[in-house]
């Protein structure tokens, strides 16, 4: 069975560049309708299909993503 993962995003530091969305193989991430204090639509998890590959965390230019992987 594929491993499960959980993405935690520091929404106040996210600038909505969408790089993580492109990097995600399972299309887990999308931009929120809401905005953060700076006015950017931030990335959020929209499905439970995260496999914990952490591609999103690697590509994030502002290091706002932390990925927790199920052991």
């Amino acid at each position, binding site marked *: 069975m594929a491993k499960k993962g959980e993405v935690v995003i520091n929404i106040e530091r996210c*600038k909505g*560049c969408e790089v993580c969305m492109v990097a995600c193989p399972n299309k887990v991430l999308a931009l929120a309708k809401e905005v953060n204090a*700076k*006015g*950017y639509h931030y990335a959020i998890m929209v499905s439970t299909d995260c496999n914990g590959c952490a591609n999103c965390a690697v590509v994030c*230019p*502002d290091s706002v993503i932390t990925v927790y992987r199920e052991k």
Partner: protein
Amino acid sequence: MKELKLMKGNEALAEASILAGADAYFGYPITPQSEVIEYLMAVKPFERTGMVVLQAESEIAAINMVYGAAGCGKRTLTSSSSPGISLMQEGLSYIAGAELPCVVVNVTRGGPGLGTIQPSQSDYFQAVKGGGHGDYKLITLAPATVQETVDYMKLAFELAFKYRNPVMILTDGIIGQMMEKVELFEQQPRITEEFDWATKGKKEGKEHVIITSLQLQSEQQEKVNLRLQAKYREVEKNEVRYVTHHCDEEIDYLIVAFGSCARIAQNAMDQARKKGIKIGLLRPQTLYPYPYDAINKLAGKVKGILTVEMNAGQMLEDVKLAVNGKTKVEFYGRFGGMIPSPDEILNAIENKLIGG
């Protein structure tokens, strides 16, 4: 080799201002430029070099604080994004009229009005064709990389004091928010020498120094204008800067683009060259003074020019003035915070420039 650092555009810009020996920063936060003042407040340059960092109550207050500090012969700067820069226009006109040096950074976002917070280049007209009232010009620098943003901060202060004129660094939300490697320059000393034109307190036996942009007699005001125009001709003669790619070779077509858009266009140019299209790229680094002569010379040897911008065709007018009817000029642009992709530009090259 010097130390390389990975920095966000806005933070690199703020660090560069400290290193350039700035005496004061006055500003007001606005996305996508807020990191400039955030960084300055965090690294506390008032403890490192004695540079003043102050959050003004508005952009209008910030530019007038710059006016005051510049009048004392200090190196001062402010930064903002499009709506904030609009608020500063009156102050900028006054500073240009009073012939004072300062640096203004515009991290452009989409307009008009409050617009969006995504990057755009739609402040080109405002930067190079006026903005404020009166016959004045801003020396306008357009960086395309975070490294250039850093280098231009030093250059901007040099030009501002050389010509006693406000200098604008016209960057955009892409470069401001982008992380890139940069090589920082060495710490420059803060200005200690006294300028004759600056208000330093009247000393015995010396004339009053009066800094004003008000001349109630038209004869006097015309003299001011003539002096300004003579200065601008000098700037146009000496300070034109641009880079070219493949323009020395035999080319059939040319792309003209500035700032971050030029980097996307460069990618499209490389793709087109792989397909066998003989195409080059010219990127103006100074938007005022504009490289009219360079574009005019190239226009004589190409079949067409494509201007790529993140606006509805503002620099296009300057390209057309430079080309002066020698060849056809096409335009491709996205606006309102949207960014063109290299594929879109390649498509425009094939269909508009060659096919059209």
